């Protein structure tokens, strides 16, 4: 093979054990981040689209039985899930005598489901924030360590020329580059998901009382 060790792989092969460990950690971070990004992207998009479709049907038909039947089609939407929770609670009450108490119980069920839905939709997303915040620092740690080793080598060879200093530094900078490569997509995805999740949570807050009132009115 080519004797000159140019390129990223040449630098990685010359790296020390700590730098290699850091690179492995960053690789793992990157893999998990991308898995979360792909998984959440699908989940959030589905939730938004199904919620929008359910709301259209909800405002079109004011019959709770029909709405409930329609909501069964939207298994991944947040709003249909919350509505189903309220409806199920209402049916569990049976014959209602005290309307105030029935309203309170349905409202509680709806709120509980809204909270659960909010947690479900925002799960794993904080990991993206963790990667986005820590990966550059982990990479930087590897770089600092690599530069320390490089300076030791410079001391041994007793030469401070650019040719003696540059290879060690470029080798060390691989860790920072890997950290940034893991962090940048994670930060972008985190910002996107927080925005979308905020939107879903606003919908849940806004339409939960509406669901309760519709259920009680039907009763």
């Amino acid at each position, binding site marked *: 093979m080519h004797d000159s060790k140019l390129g990223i792989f040449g630098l990685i092969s010359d790296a020390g054990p700590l730098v290699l460990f850091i690179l492995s950690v960053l690789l793992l971070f990157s893999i998990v981040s991308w898995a979360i990004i792909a998984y959440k992207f699908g989940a959030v998009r589905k939730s938004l689209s199904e919620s929008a479709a359910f709301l259209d049907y909800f405002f079109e038909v004011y019959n709770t039985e029909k709405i409930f039947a329609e909501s069964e089609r939207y298994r991944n939407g947040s709003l249909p899930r919350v509505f*189903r929770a309220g409806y199920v609670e209402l049916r569990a009450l049976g014959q209602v005598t005290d309307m105030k108490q029935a309203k309170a119980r349905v409202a509680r069920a709806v709120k509980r489901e809204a909270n659960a839905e909010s947690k479900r939709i925002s799960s794993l997303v904080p990991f993206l924030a963790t990667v986005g915040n820590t990966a550059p620092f982990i990479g930087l740690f590897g770089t600092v360590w690599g530069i320390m080793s490089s300076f030791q080598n410079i001391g041994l060879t007793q030469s401070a*020329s650019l*040719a003696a200093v540059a290879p060690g530094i470029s080798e060390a900078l691989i860790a920072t580059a890997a950290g940034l490569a893991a962090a940048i997509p994670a930060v972008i995805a985190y910002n996107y998901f927080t925005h979308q999740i905020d939107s879903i949570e606003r919908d849940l807050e806004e339409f939960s009382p509406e669901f309760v009132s519709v259920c009680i009115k039907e009763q």
Partner: protein
Amino acid sequence: MNRGLYPLRTDRKFYAWLVAAALMHVLVITLSLFIWIWESGRHVKTRVVNVTFVSLPGSGGASQVSEPGSAETREQSPQEAKAPSLTQPVEQVAQVPQKKLPEEPLKSKTDAKPSDLTRTLEKLKQSADRKTQVSPSSLNSALSALKQKVGTQGATGGPGQGAGSGRGASGVGFGSGGIADPYKAQIAMIIQKNWEFSKSMMRNSFGMEVYVRINILPDGTVREIVYDKRSPSEYLNMSVKKALEKSSPLPAVPGGQGNPGLWIGFVFTPEGIEK
């Protein structure tokens, strides 16, 4: 409601994405590795066109001075003294050693001299005949002196005309001999010993060659270090300079008394010294 089943299903989905992400990373890394190897292969192809110079050009170069003080080669090529044409300098230089010029120019020059002499003698005789023979003894002595003078000129050649003017004997260049020169091998070993250079500090050894020649005084002192070609790595250049400075004084030049200095060339590569 099947609340318990839902997270299980989502977990499975997430694991599937996890595997997909891992495969994607493996694919990207493999692709990068493949591109890197391919790029490396391209570099190797260009490296085939690599010329290694063994000898150093200029006065005192190793190959040029392999026969120190060879006056014969200088004498044989009077045309060499003339400026060679710029169109075919290599061919002319290559042809010079093949040409055997067995003193023909010398003969032609010396042949021309007797005719002048006879003409002069005739002139002198005529003038002597015209004049009264006042002092025949002085005329004879003058003729004999002229004959002697012409004879010596014919034997040695004219100043600046003949190729055998002794330039080779008093030439400035003093070579170090061929590759197998024991003195050169000895000093190369000394320099190699004093050369502190770590190959591991070089990421790229492509084109890392330093052509350097040193001027060694008869007592072995390194008088001058000349870089004929520097490497891109300043670290390698400086390590070579340090090694040469550290090696001074070298062993005395064998038979080098009276010479202004011995020029020896070396090629330093990360693999070692090429003599």
